[in-house]
């Protein structure tokens, strides 16, 4: 039909951001279910959790925390760069974010494969002989970091799409809400790690 379509003219950046915040809330609740499970079992088997946590490499954990914090900073800086109409810097900063995310995943890969090599993985013979609480700790470790790693991958996909949109100019200083929402999502992924890190690596 040939009438001008008022539906297409509708644009509400504020609404888009509210939507993103609500979505972030649901993600926190998704992990909230896991934190609840962690709290219940930690309370029940605090001794075993204490012993098991020593098995994790706090150095790799700290390194990954620093990496993610830096990547959050670069995403935030890329927003400022787009607002200053500096497209090239914005693209470089987003690129750095993606590289940092990749380094995080590589570290994670080595960390997991080391554990698996030691025979600590769900369903292994060694796991079956562990104390109940230790078994649960490692199950939680794999489930929580695994689900978090999945979110890193989703975040990387989103940021890659945005990188291309910055490049072709469809994300610019006037239409920046997509980048801001992508950045929010990335901060969320970071924030969840901030909670996972002490719960799994630091509290022993």
């Amino acid at each position, binding site marked *: 039909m040939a009438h001008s379509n008022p539906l297409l003219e509708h644009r509400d950046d504020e609404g888009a951001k509210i939507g993103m915040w609500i979505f972030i809330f649901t993600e926190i609740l998704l*992990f909230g279910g896991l934190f609840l499970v962690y709290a219940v079992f930690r309370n029940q088997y605090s001794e075993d959790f204490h012993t098991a946590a020593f098995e994790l490499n706090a150095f790799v954990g700290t390194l990954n925390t620093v990496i993610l914090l830096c990547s959050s900073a670069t995403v935030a800086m890329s927003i400022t760069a787009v607002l200053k109409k500096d497209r090239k810097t914005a693209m470089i900063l987003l690129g750095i974010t993606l590289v940092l995310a990749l380094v995080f995943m590589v570290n994670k890969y080595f960390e997991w494969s080391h554990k698996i090599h030691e025979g600590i993985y769900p*369903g292994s013979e060694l796991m079956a002989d562990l104390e109940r609480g230790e*078994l649960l700790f490692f*199950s939680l470790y794999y489930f929580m970091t695994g689900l978090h790693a999945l979110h890193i991958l989703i975040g990387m996909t989103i940021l890659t799409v945005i990188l291309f949109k910055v490049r072709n100019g469809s994300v610019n200083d006037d239409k920046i809400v997509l980048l801001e929402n992508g950045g929010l999502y990335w901060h969320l992924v970071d924030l969840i790690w901030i909670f996972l890190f002490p719960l799994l690596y630091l509290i022993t």
Partner: protein
Amino acid sequence: MAKLDTPALEQSFLNNHGKNPIRAWLFSTDHKRIGILYLLSIGFFFLVGGLLGGLMRIELIAPGETIMDPQTYNGVFTVHGLIMIFLVVIPGLSAVFGNFFLPILIGARDVAFPKLNLLSWWLYIFGAILAISSQFLGSGAPDTGWTFYAPYSTETGSNVVLAVFSAFVLGFSSILTGLNFIVTVHRMRAPGMTWFKMPLFPWSLYATAWIQVLATPIVGVTFLMIVAERLFQIGFFDPSLGGDPLLYQHLFWIYSHPAVYIMILPAMGVVTEIIPTFAKKHIFGYKAIALSSLAIAAVGYFVWGHHMYTAGMSGTARWFFSFLTFIVAVPSAIKVFNWVATMHKGSITVRTPFLYTLAFIFLFMIGGLTGLWLGALATNVHLHDTAFVVAHFHYIIFGGMGFAFFAGLHYWYPKMFGKMYDEKLANVAFVIIFIGFNLLYFPLFIIGMQGMPRRYADYLPEYTGGHFWSTMGAIVLITGALLMIYNLIIRTRKKGTPAEMNPWGGKSLEWTLESPPKEHNFDEIPTITENPYNY
């Protein structure tokens, strides 16, 4: 579509097909079309679920094996529950009438995120395909019941992973719809429409949307844990892997009790729209109804433990959950009181939607009050896991949500399709459905109290009478439902008369539009100056 015989139909959202009509519908971001897509798909799954329920009733018509063996029966009641809960009643009213009428009722041209809205529907269809295929693929239909209780769900040989994953996908679809509606209500209300000038159906959708957003992720991650337990032996629930089965029940009901309010709140909203229209009177206690929706949403979070009284909780936890269960009944009672008070001294015209509404109030009260029997600790121990529970929740879900759905369908049908159905036939169908419903479920209260367990394919001879009448009721109910569908689809297509703009004399915004509305709803966005129920 039937012959285009009115100018309204010519210009309506139904008529814009573009080059490829299928594409124009399946990929439309128009909230009205998405509402109709939901109506058709939910209607289809309702029939499938109803058919499975009918098969269960035939199996139970007499003691012993009638048409299926016990394992098949377990599969059938699981699929019946899965389809009816996740594909019919949870999306139900908010996806169909919410999508179609929320933007119109608040004076907007669409929801806040039209593309996301379409994605929700596609996720729904994807989840539905997974749910249906779980019945045929792999190692046999799931036999856990729709609750997927651990540790059975982590040990049974049947195809649980696919079924659980489908519920996860459907939950995601539900979250996106909720998110969309929250932002829509916050950002898209017409100028002058303050919160307390908003009609009450949007109010109930708003409360529902918050539950969808806040409760669904918990069950989502719980279902992922079940999948991980079956695929990777990460055992949070299986005692042999270190876990705790009771923890599953807690996590499951943290969502699944609020889910009951996802079903019933929009139903209450529809009823609240219908009553003032036919009583020709301002709704009684507008603010009390609006706020009681939020109260139900809030308190409804903290009552999940009443599903677990016999599962092994501390005495303190039990009286606490029981107390809160009684508290949550209060805002529901406030609504019932206000509906009845609205009718008091109104000039009532009894038309088809109003009949369904009256039936809703009656059935919802039976369902709600028997809920208090189950919420009380002492009676619960006697009634737990009996047919009484089955009767109770069917009175709430079908008698409540289902009848409100039918009420809404008959109320808004002329607006949605621009045609008026045969009201006499609709009333006949209503009477048959109402009788069939009560005949089907009321005997279950009685045999449940006498000790008939739920989910059993066989029973002792003393329950034969109750089961026999219940099956008769199922036959009557299905007859009535088919008559209703015949009337709304086939007969109206052939003989339906063009609908007026405002066939019932309603005051809310949808009645200021053509029947059916144009693609962009309003030529000019209205400015709101008064409350929607000024009769």
